[in-house]
């Protein structure tokens, strides 16, 4: 699949702008949303090829957003979802998210370049 549009749900301004900058630089169309409720609303429009989802978010946590999108049937079949978090979840929550998402990454363990490589691997 080709990835052109990316929804980035991230409340940390520095991190959000960092990814947004690096992804835009590569030619992706990035929409940055800073809270969970708005993020879910935006995701449900189904117009994004990729959703980068944080876990610790105001309004609605990433776990809830993922459950709303993929818990009971896939509401966004045209979007890939990658969980991007610094929160060390317990094994169960982590596995619950991993089973629903297409990727699960610890932000502190990767750099923007590594994220780009992972996104490109979806396009193969």
């Amino acid at each position, binding site marked *: 699949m080709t990835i052109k549009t990316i929804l980035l749900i991230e409340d*940390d301004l*520095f*991190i959000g702008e*960092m*990814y947004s*900058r*690096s992804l835009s630089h590569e030619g992706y169309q990035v929409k940055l949303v800073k809270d969970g409720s708005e993020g879910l609303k935006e995701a449900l429009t189904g117009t994004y090829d990729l959703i980068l989802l944080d876990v*610790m978010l105001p309004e609605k946590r990433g*776990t809830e957003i993922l459950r709303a999108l993929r818990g009971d049937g896939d509401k966004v079949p045209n979007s890939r979802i990658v969980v991007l978090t*610094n*929160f*060390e*979840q*317990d*094994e*169960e*929550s982590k*596995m*619950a998210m991993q*089973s629903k998402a297409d990727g699960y990454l*610890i*932000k*502190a*363990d990767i*750099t*923007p*370049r590594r994220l780009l490589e992972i996104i490109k691997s979806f396009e193969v």
Partner: protein
Amino acid sequence: MAVKISDFYNKYTSEVVAAVMLTEVFLTSIAGVVAWILWQYSGLDPLSAFTYSLVFLMVIHVVATPIIVNIAARPLKVLWQAIARVSNDSTLTQPPNINLPQYEKNGLKALVQTIYDLAVQSEQAEQGSAADGRPALFQALVESVPVGIIALNDKADVVYANTLSPTHKNSGDSVVIELNFEKTDSLDTWLASCQNKLRDTHTWHRVANKLPGEEGRRIFDVVGYYRKRGEAGIEIILVTIDRTSEYAPQEEDMDFIALAAHELRGPITVIRGYLELLGQDLHDITPDQQQLIDRLQVSSERLSGYINNILNVSRYDRNHLKLHLQEERAYDIIASLIPDLALRAKTQNRKLTFHVADTLPTIAADRSSLSEVISNLIDNAIKYSKDGGEVVVSAAAKDKFVELTVQDFGMGMPGSVVGNLFNKFYRSHRSRQTVSGTGLGLYICKAIVESHGGTIWVRSVEGEGTTFGFTVPIYSTVADKLAADNNGNQAIIDSKEGWIKNHAMFRR
């Protein structure tokens, strides 16, 4: 007055005797009349007339006997119909009519009613269905034991669950089990493994009904009993033991550490990310400036590694280290680490050499954990070797294991240090002064290696250098054990003695 069933036999035989006697008297009287008429009016002598009347008597007996027997056997027919009916004999469609006055009088009605009552009682006992569904004693028993009990049939549908069991009824009124099993060790995977068995038992630890943070979360130990074609259609019984009071406080500790790690990781993400972006944006920088950026990058990477170490230790300390071992090639694992490690070696001016053949037998490994061990050992070797020194990474097959060694030619360590190396937070006096670190790395390495069923060792000579080595089992030697445990490492750990079983890290 109601007729008792004990009166039936006497009443019935009296009736039959009376009926037979009356019939005999009647028939004999007719035969007598016939003999008299023949003697008086047909001119026969008395003996002939008597003989003819005897023949006549025999003929009417031939006709009358079946009729009499039929009438006398009617109650027997009713009993036969009643018994056939309660035994579900499909050849009889009509129930017997027991409402005739004579049946009421002779007790037959009461007798048939008793048969019906007994049949209903036995059916209820079979289905266990009294007014509330189950006999009171059974109900009281399963509700008063302090565990959850869930019974499932051969289709894994819940046929019974007591109040304490983690279950709820869904909208379709069927009972749903609320247990979040691990994907690789779920109820389904166990049931699949039971397909070819007659009986089996399986135990799960720390199975919760809800995710952390959700209301009403309880944590259970669960024991499953499987019996093919068990009694009353029950094939599986799950017993759940609520261990929330024991497990929950440990979760709260973890919550704090997880939160702290989250707060620390945020700034590190930003530092690492912006350093990389900065590096890409900067052009025409001097090698000196490049070295500064490289050092910043390596340090921020290390910081993120430390936080992962702290999280791992806290997880290992409070719980058994669970790994999922797959068939892997040592060569592939090392090859994937080379770019990162080479950068670290280059920034500290060390030469990194690998002697790892891609023809080694495959190993049973948890890839990310084993990568952590290898990175950690190589990192240490880089730290403790001399400027411009060499670090040699080799691998070789040894008996049932593949052994991997990391050798440096640095300062080496005295025996007193070597003996404590794998203790938590241990740092030698000298390394405190010269090299940064938490003293957790080797402790974690040991935990990971031994959780693979291998051993870790160190050999050091002061002034000459140090070699760390560890073994992991060759895949083919443990494939059976792994298959029996859904690729979990439990069977491998259980078969080992000593430290791994006694160490606090592995106590539940």
